[in-house]
Protein backbone atom coordinates (compact mmCIF):
# COMPACT_ATOMS: atom_id res chain seq x y z
CA UNK A 1 0.00 0.00 0.00
CA UNK A 2 1.20 3.49 -0.74
CA UNK A 3 0.01 6.80 0.69
CA UNK A 4 0.34 10.04 -1.27
CA UNK A 5 1.70 13.18 0.37
CA UNK A 6 0.57 16.45 -1.14
CA UNK A 7 4.04 17.99 -1.09
CA UNK A 8 7.32 17.75 -2.97
CA UNK A 9 10.27 16.15 -1.21
CA UNK A 10 12.29 19.31 -1.94
CA UNK A 11 11.08 22.64 -3.40
CA UNK A 12 11.28 23.08 -7.18
CA UNK A 13 11.64 26.63 -8.43
CA UNK A 14 12.52 27.83 -11.91
CA UNK A 15 13.50 31.41 -12.69
CA UNK A 16 12.37 31.35 -16.33
CA UNK A 17 10.55 29.24 -18.91
CA UNK A 18 13.03 27.04 -20.78
CA UNK A 19 11.42 24.36 -22.95
CA UNK A 20 14.77 23.17 -24.27
CA UNK A 21 15.92 22.36 -20.73
CA UNK A 22 12.58 20.60 -20.18
CA UNK A 23 13.38 18.46 -23.19
CA UNK A 24 16.75 17.40 -21.72
CA UNK A 25 15.28 16.80 -18.25
CA UNK A 26 13.12 14.04 -19.72
CA UNK A 27 16.25 11.86 -19.57
CA UNK A 28 15.62 11.62 -15.83
CA UNK A 29 11.88 11.17 -16.32
CA UNK A 30 11.60 8.36 -18.86
CA UNK A 31 15.25 7.53 -19.60
CA UNK A 32 17.15 4.31 -18.91
CA UNK A 33 18.73 5.66 -15.72
CA UNK A 34 15.85 7.96 -14.85
CA UNK A 35 13.63 8.07 -11.80
CA UNK A 36 10.85 5.89 -13.24
CA UNK A 37 13.36 3.15 -14.06
CA UNK A 38 14.87 3.47 -10.59
CA UNK A 39 11.54 3.25 -8.72
CA UNK A 40 10.30 0.28 -10.73
CA UNK A 41 13.68 -1.51 -10.60
CA UNK A 42 13.95 -1.47 -6.80
CA UNK A 43 10.31 -2.09 -6.01
CA UNK A 44 10.36 -5.10 -8.34
CA UNK A 45 13.63 -6.56 -7.08
CA UNK A 46 12.57 -6.45 -3.44
CA UNK A 47 10.31 -9.54 -3.68
CA UNK A 48 13.28 -11.86 -4.20
CA UNK A 49 16.06 -10.04 -2.27
CA UNK A 50 17.18 -11.35 1.17
CA UNK A 51 15.02 -10.07 4.06
CA UNK A 52 17.82 -7.86 5.43
CA UNK A 53 17.65 -5.64 2.33
CA UNK A 54 13.89 -5.55 1.56
CA UNK A 55 13.37 -2.46 3.74
CA UNK A 56 16.11 -0.53 1.96
CA UNK A 57 14.80 -1.37 -1.53
CA UNK A 58 11.27 -0.44 -0.45
CA UNK A 59 12.37 2.91 0.97
CA UNK A 60 14.69 3.93 -1.86
CA UNK A 61 12.12 2.78 -4.44
CA UNK A 62 9.51 4.93 -2.74
CA UNK A 63 11.84 7.94 -2.59
CA UNK A 64 12.44 7.60 -6.34
CA UNK A 65 8.75 8.30 -6.95
CA UNK A 66 9.17 11.56 -5.02
CA UNK A 67 12.08 12.39 -7.34
CA UNK A 68 9.98 11.50 -10.40
CA UNK A 69 7.43 14.05 -9.18
CA UNK A 70 10.16 16.68 -8.80
CA UNK A 71 11.34 16.12 -12.40
CA UNK A 72 7.74 16.28 -13.61
CA UNK A 73 7.33 19.57 -11.74
CA UNK A 74 10.44 20.99 -13.43
CA UNK A 75 9.23 19.97 -16.89
CA UNK A 76 5.74 21.31 -16.16
CA UNK A 77 7.01 24.67 -14.91
CA UNK A 78 9.57 25.09 -17.69
CA UNK A 79 6.95 24.63 -20.44
CA UNK A 80 3.62 25.77 -19.03
CA UNK A 81 3.56 29.28 -20.53
CA UNK A 82 5.14 28.39 -23.87
CA UNK A 83 3.35 28.58 -27.23
CA UNK A 84 3.29 25.82 -29.84
CA UNK A 85 5.87 27.77 -31.81
CA UNK A 86 8.20 28.15 -28.84
CA UNK A 87 7.95 24.42 -28.15
CA UNK A 88 8.84 23.77 -31.79
CA UNK A 89 11.82 26.13 -31.72
CA UNK A 90 13.11 24.40 -28.57
CA UNK A 91 13.17 21.05 -30.34
CA UNK A 92 9.88 19.83 -28.85
CA UNK A 93 7.90 19.99 -32.11
CA UNK A 94 7.63 16.21 -32.44
CA UNK A 95 6.60 15.95 -28.80
CA UNK A 96 4.03 18.71 -29.17
CA UNK A 97 2.51 17.12 -32.27
CA UNK A 98 1.81 13.95 -30.32
CA UNK A 99 1.31 15.10 -26.72
CA UNK A 100 0.71 18.86 -26.63
CA UNK A 101 2.30 19.75 -23.27
CA UNK A 102 1.45 16.47 -21.59
CA UNK A 103 4.34 14.66 -19.99
CA UNK A 104 5.31 11.33 -21.50
CA UNK A 105 7.68 8.63 -20.29
CA UNK A 106 10.42 9.15 -22.83
CA UNK A 107 14.08 10.12 -22.71
CA UNK A 108 15.72 13.37 -23.84
CA UNK A 109 15.74 12.11 -27.44
CA UNK A 110 12.04 11.17 -27.32
CA UNK A 111 12.53 7.39 -27.10
CA UNK A 112 9.66 5.86 -25.08
CA UNK A 113 10.44 4.18 -21.77
CA UNK A 114 10.79 0.40 -21.91
CA UNK A 115 10.97 -2.32 -19.25
CA UNK A 116 14.11 -3.53 -21.03
CA UNK A 117 15.94 -0.68 -19.24
CA UNK A 118 15.73 -2.48 -15.91
CA UNK A 119 16.96 -5.85 -14.73
CA UNK A 120 15.89 -8.38 -12.14
CA UNK A 121 18.36 -11.25 -11.94
CA UNK A 122 17.20 -12.91 -8.74
CA UNK A 123 20.82 -12.93 -7.60
CA UNK A 124 21.16 -10.37 -4.79
CA UNK A 125 24.73 -9.36 -5.60
CA UNK A 126 23.99 -8.99 -9.32
CA UNK A 127 20.84 -6.97 -8.56
CA UNK A 128 22.54 -4.68 -6.04
CA UNK A 129 25.50 -4.07 -8.35
CA UNK A 130 23.06 -3.04 -11.04
CA UNK A 131 21.40 -0.70 -8.55
CA UNK A 132 24.74 0.88 -7.62
CA UNK A 133 25.59 1.35 -11.31
CA UNK A 134 22.15 2.89 -11.94
CA UNK A 135 22.66 5.41 -9.12
CA UNK A 136 26.10 6.38 -10.42
CA UNK A 137 24.75 6.82 -13.95
CA UNK A 138 21.88 8.95 -12.65
CA UNK A 139 24.36 11.04 -10.63
CA UNK A 140 26.42 11.63 -13.79
CA UNK A 141 23.27 12.61 -15.74
CA UNK A 142 22.32 15.13 -13.06
CA UNK A 143 25.79 16.65 -13.33
CA UNK A 144 25.42 17.04 -17.11
CA UNK A 145 21.98 18.61 -16.60
CA UNK A 146 23.35 21.05 -14.00
CA UNK A 147 26.10 22.00 -16.48
CA UNK A 148 23.51 22.64 -19.22
CA UNK A 149 21.52 25.35 -17.41
CA UNK A 150 22.35 28.74 -15.89
CA UNK A 151 19.09 28.84 -13.91
CA UNK A 152 20.32 28.82 -10.30
CA UNK A 153 16.91 27.83 -8.91
CA UNK A 154 16.73 24.83 -11.21
CA UNK A 155 20.35 23.97 -10.42
CA UNK A 156 19.50 23.97 -6.71
CA UNK A 157 16.82 21.28 -7.12
CA UNK A 158 19.03 19.27 -9.49
CA UNK A 159 21.89 19.38 -6.98
CA UNK A 160 19.58 17.98 -4.32
CA UNK A 161 18.70 15.09 -6.65
CA UNK A 162 22.37 14.52 -7.54
CA UNK A 163 23.24 14.22 -3.84
CA UNK A 164 20.45 11.71 -3.29
CA UNK A 165 22.00 9.46 -5.94
CA UNK A 166 25.26 9.57 -3.96
CA UNK A 167 23.49 8.48 -0.77
CA UNK A 168 21.48 5.74 -2.48
CA UNK A 169 24.67 4.35 -4.04
CA UNK A 170 26.34 4.35 -0.62
CA UNK A 171 23.41 2.52 1.01
CA UNK A 172 23.36 -0.11 -1.76
CA UNK A 173 27.10 -0.67 -1.24
CA UNK A 174 26.41 -1.23 2.46
CA UNK A 175 23.63 -3.67 1.52
CA UNK A 176 26.16 -5.67 -0.54
CA UNK A 177 28.41 -5.91 2.53
CA UNK A 178 25.48 -6.98 4.72
CA UNK A 179 24.62 -9.80 2.30
CA UNK A 180 28.27 -10.89 2.04
CA UNK A 181 28.60 -10.93 5.84
CA UNK A 182 25.42 -13.01 6.17
CA UNK A 183 26.82 -15.53 3.69
CA UNK A 184 30.10 -15.80 5.60
CA UNK A 185 28.24 -16.36 8.83
CA UNK A 186 26.21 -19.19 7.30
CA UNK A 187 29.44 -20.91 6.21
CA UNK A 188 30.94 -20.73 9.72
CA UNK A 189 27.97 -22.09 11.67
Amino acid at each position, binding site marked *: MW*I*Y*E*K*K*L*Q*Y*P*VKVSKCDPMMAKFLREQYGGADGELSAALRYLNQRYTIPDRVI*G*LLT*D*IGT*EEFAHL*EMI*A*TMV*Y*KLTKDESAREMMLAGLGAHYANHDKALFYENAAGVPWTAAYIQAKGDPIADLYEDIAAEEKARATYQWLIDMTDDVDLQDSLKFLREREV*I*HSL*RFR*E*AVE*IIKADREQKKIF
Partner: protein
Amino acid sequence: MDQASGQSERPQEQPQRPVAGDEAYRRQLEELQQVDFALVELNLYLDTHPTDLQALQQFNQLAQRSRHLRYDFEMRYGPMMNFGHSFSRFPWQWPETPWPWQV
Protein backbone atom coordinates in the same frame (compact mmCIF):
# COMPACT_ATOMS: atom_id res chain seq x y z
CA MET B 1 -4.33 53.93 22.78
CA ASP B 2 -7.97 54.87 23.51
CA GLN B 3 -10.79 52.43 23.24
CA ALA B 4 -12.21 53.80 20.00
CA SER B 5 -8.97 53.46 18.03
CA GLY B 6 -8.37 50.06 19.63
CA GLN B 7 -11.73 48.92 18.28
CA SER B 8 -11.10 50.23 14.81
CA GLU B 9 -7.76 48.44 14.66
CA ARG B 10 -9.16 45.11 15.73
CA PRO B 11 -9.87 43.76 12.22
CA GLN B 12 -6.20 44.20 11.33
CA GLU B 13 -5.15 42.23 14.39
CA GLN B 14 -7.18 39.22 13.28
CA PRO B 15 -4.95 36.55 11.78
CA GLN B 16 -5.28 36.60 8.02
CA ARG B 17 -7.20 33.79 6.38
CA PRO B 18 -4.64 31.19 5.29
CA VAL B 19 -4.15 31.10 1.53
CA ALA B 20 -2.69 27.86 0.18
CA GLY B 21 0.28 28.57 -2.06
CA ASP B 22 1.20 32.00 -0.66
CA GLU B 23 4.48 32.92 1.01
CA ALA B 24 3.42 31.83 4.51
CA TYR B 25 2.26 28.51 3.04
CA ARG B 26 5.59 27.95 1.34
CA ARG B 27 7.51 28.86 4.50
CA GLN B 28 5.54 26.45 6.68
CA LEU B 29 5.76 23.78 3.99
CA GLU B 30 9.52 24.17 3.80
CA GLU B 31 9.83 23.72 7.56
CA LEU B 32 8.03 20.40 7.22
CA GLN B 33 10.09 19.45 4.16
CA GLN B 34 13.27 20.00 6.17
CA VAL B 35 12.21 17.72 9.02
CA ASP B 36 10.78 15.10 6.67
CA PHE B 37 14.00 15.10 4.66
CA ALA B 38 16.02 14.36 7.79
CA LEU B 39 13.60 11.51 8.46
CA VAL B 40 14.09 10.01 4.98
CA GLU B 41 17.83 10.27 5.41
CA LEU B 42 17.78 8.69 8.89
CA ASN B 43 15.39 6.00 7.67
CA LEU B 44 17.74 4.89 4.88
CA TYR B 45 20.72 5.07 7.24
CA LEU B 46 18.95 2.92 9.82
CA ASP B 47 18.04 0.37 7.12
CA THR B 48 21.74 -0.51 6.93
CA HIS B 49 22.70 0.48 10.53
CA PRO B 50 19.82 -0.96 12.62
CA THR B 51 21.78 -0.94 15.90
CA ASP B 52 22.75 2.76 15.92
CA LEU B 53 20.83 3.83 19.03
CA GLN B 54 21.62 7.53 18.68
CA ALA B 55 20.31 7.63 15.10
CA LEU B 56 17.20 5.78 16.20
CA GLN B 57 16.55 8.27 19.01
CA GLN B 58 16.98 11.14 16.58
CA PHE B 59 14.59 9.42 14.18
CA ASN B 60 11.88 9.06 16.83
CA GLN B 61 12.31 12.65 18.01
CA LEU B 62 12.01 14.01 14.48
CA ALA B 63 9.04 11.74 13.74
CA GLN B 64 7.29 13.40 16.70
CA ARG B 65 8.25 16.87 15.47
CA SER B 66 7.06 16.06 11.94
CA ARG B 67 3.65 15.01 13.29
CA HIS B 68 3.25 18.34 15.11
CA LEU B 69 4.32 20.40 12.09
CA ARG B 70 2.06 18.38 9.78
CA TYR B 71 -0.90 18.77 12.12
CA ASP B 72 -0.44 22.57 12.25
CA PHE B 73 -0.05 22.74 8.48
CA GLU B 74 -3.16 20.66 7.87
CA MET B 75 -5.27 22.70 10.31
CA ARG B 76 -4.36 25.75 8.24
CA TYR B 77 -4.29 24.46 4.67
CA GLY B 78 -6.16 21.16 4.60
CA PRO B 79 -5.22 17.50 4.34
CA MET B 80 -1.75 16.55 3.19
CA MET B 81 -2.31 12.80 2.96
CA ASN B 82 -5.06 10.70 1.39
CA PHE B 83 -6.91 7.53 2.44
CA GLY B 84 -7.68 8.59 6.00
CA HIS B 85 -4.25 9.69 7.16
CA SER B 86 -5.43 13.32 7.35
CA PHE B 87 -8.69 14.92 8.50
CA SER B 88 -10.87 17.15 6.31
CA ARG B 89 -13.25 20.03 6.93
CA PHE B 90 -16.50 20.38 5.01
CA PRO B 91 -16.70 20.35 2.06
CA TRP B 92 -14.17 17.56 1.27
CA GLN B 93 -10.83 19.40 1.00
CA TRP B 94 -8.55 16.82 -0.56
CA PRO B 95 -9.08 17.87 -4.22
CA GLU B 96 -8.35 21.54 -3.44
CA THR B 97 -5.40 23.20 -5.17
CA PRO B 98 -2.51 23.74 -5.10
CA TRP B 99 -1.07 20.36 -5.97
CA PRO B 100 2.69 20.12 -5.40
CA TRP B 101 3.70 21.07 -8.94
CA GLN B 102 1.45 24.14 -8.80
CA VAL B 103 3.13 25.64 -5.72
